[in-house]
């Protein structure tokens, strides 16, 4: 029996629960879940890359890159911009030397 003067003290007491590996189990579950999510993300990226390669074979991909590179080298605005960059670089180097 709980005497009346101890009633409030008894109510204020919540029995402590020993850890006994509980925290470690929670941490392990979280780590496992994190790893699972990371693996799922990698899998999704790999699947997306696979789909791209499937619908655009490497030959076509190489041809597309080649076309873009050739277009850039034949483009007057790109040539002018590259020329400006070279001139700026030369100017800066000269200014530094003086």
């Amino acid at each position, binding site marked *: 029996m709980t005497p009346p003067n101890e009633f409030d003290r008894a109510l204020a007491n919540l029995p402590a*629960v020993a*850890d006994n590996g509980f925290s470690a189990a929670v941490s392990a579950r979280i780590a496992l879940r994190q790893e699972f999510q990371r693996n799922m993300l990698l899998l999704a990226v790999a699947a997306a890359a696979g789909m791209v390669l499937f619908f655009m074979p490497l030959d076509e991909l190489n041809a597309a890159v080649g076309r873009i590179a050739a277009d850039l080298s034949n483009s007057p605005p790109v040539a002018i911009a590259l020329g400006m960059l070279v001139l700026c670089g030369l100017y800066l180097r000269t200014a530094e030397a003086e």
Partner: protein
Amino acid sequence: MTDGELAALAASGDEAAYGLLVRRHQSRLRGFLRRLTRGDAALADDLAQESLFEAWRKLAQFTGKGSFVGWLLAIAWSRYLMTARKRKLEPLEDADGVPFETGDPDAKLDLEKAMARLSLPERGALTLCLALEFSHEEAAEMMALPLGTVKSHIARGRGKLRRLLGLAS
């Protein structure tokens, strides 16, 4: 390091910081859930794990406005309500309409057994406010109940416990 600082680290993906929070609060969380589950330690521990996992996923939502343990216990309370509703463990509402059996008036119960005979909101409110030392306002927020209702649960729960423990005048 404070709970708030650990929670901020954990929110940025620091699992070790969260592990420290788990170790720091597991006893109160599991003790609270054991009260709610009327001493079913296995169910309480399952719910504690789920609550901690849910808290980990929702860490970005923890604003630091209240205490971390209060936020965690609110998640645990809500989880227990869902489980009790799904498994029909006990009535979830106010126990006003439920007859309260004191049994043999000469029989004296220990506190945990007496506590198990209270309604769910009474057990929750008494444990939060008297054993875990949350204010009535905090408990009301955690249990998603009006402040007056929480105060009523505490007063009624105390009265029932006194009768069950043979302390009623």
